[in-house]
């Protein structure tokens, strides 16, 4: 397989990479950029553990070829709370919205995208936004509470 040159902007930093066609964006994030916050869960776009923000919107990085990501801008969980923790990260800790933690990076990024586009979501809107982020520990109650606690009055 011939390698393809791509350029990604991840967490504000530009990267020039030579990728194989069958590498996913998730592979490149984890293996080449050392950003292991995004997790490989189901690998089929159901669980959302691999969620990253692409141009501000949540996407499943396991279903995007690295080559398709060429020229786009991404935020991973490592790009949040540099210096001091992001308010969502603090809220998740404070409310006990984390148990095993495997889904947390993706869930927090989806929550961030939601609050960025809809600063005052109703509970139903929070739940709808999180439909693609599976959490098998918490039962979502504390996750929804944590997100609600970040809504500016």
């Amino acid at each position, binding site marked *: 397989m011939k390698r393809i040159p791509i350029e990604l902007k991840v967490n504000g930093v530009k990267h020039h990479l030579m990728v194989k066609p069958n*590498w996913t964006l998730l592979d490149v994030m984890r293996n080449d950029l050392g950003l292991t916050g995004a997790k490989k869960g189901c690998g*089929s776009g159901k669980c959302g553990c691999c969620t990253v923000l692409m141009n501000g919107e949540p996407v*499943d990085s396991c279903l995007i*070829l690295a080559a398709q990501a060429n020229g786009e801008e991404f935020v991973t969980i490592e790009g949040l709370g540099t210096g001091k923790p992001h308010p969502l990260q603090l809220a998740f800790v404070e409310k006990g919205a984390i148990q095993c933690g495997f889904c947390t990076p993706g869930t927090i990024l989806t929550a961030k995208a939601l609050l960025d586009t809809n600063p005052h979501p109703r509970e139903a809107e929070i739940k709808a936004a999180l*439909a693609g982020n599976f959490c098998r520990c918490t039962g979502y109650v504390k996750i929804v509470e944590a997100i609600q606690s970040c809504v500016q009055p």
Partner: protein
Amino acid sequence: MRLPAFEYHSAVSLSDALEKLAQLGPHARVLAGGTDLVLRMKLRIEKGDQLVDIGKVRELAFIRKEGSTIRIGALTRFSDIAASETLRKHLPILSSAAEQIGSWQIRNRATIGGNLCSASPAADSAPALLALDARVVFVGPEGEANASLESFFTGPRTHILHPAQILKEIVIESSEGRSAGTYLKLMRRKAADLAMAGVAVQARLNPEEQTLAEVTIGLGGVAATPIRAKRAEAMLKGLSHAKALKVLPEAALMAAMGANPSGRRIPEDYRRAIVEAYVKRGAKSVLETLFDGGPAR
């Protein structure tokens, strides 16, 4: 799950994509959002030795209204369809179907053209588009052509396009006057799931006679392809509110009999019962909106 080996080509324009497809031959595949194709290649259900990525062909991503004609570019994502004010106003049945597709993550990548070209019998956008009597426009080496969506699907995962052709846009005539529509989807989970069955009902009012000028019903996940329930439609067309309600149980049964589910994932009888129930439920709410002056279009 790892992807098999393949060659990747990125197209910069529609003409570039067409050239690449023609050059690469019949085994080349078009890659749009990839939420379906990449997954099916991972699962080794589908092969793509050569992928032509049209993801950067921005000229194929648009929603336009010209007079009463609405054109949706094949590369328009479901998140953009769900968010479009134009569609919410003129084709709310499509907005509703788009909202119910996959998860937010999937809707941010999956495209309407990709959904149709994947041609799953349960394709989520198909029942609503069938009920809207949509046409598809495609281009290839021999130029541009179009077809009704109804004639587009030829079987499970197959359609009328040749390997060198690309779906360009979906064209819908938004009807004059008062119309209403609804899309009902049965899932195993409350969200982010495939349709076990999808039922779309669209109707238009004849305001002078207070009758149904037009009724269209699209069904997904209940036959080898998404289908229209034409006999059920004919039973309801031209009727008043009261008469339509009276005929509805029979029409819904007719729609269910017209379905031809495989019974592979769910028993046939159950799927037919769902069609019957959803046609009844969908048509009832559409009739109410049309005749009783609820919030409608």
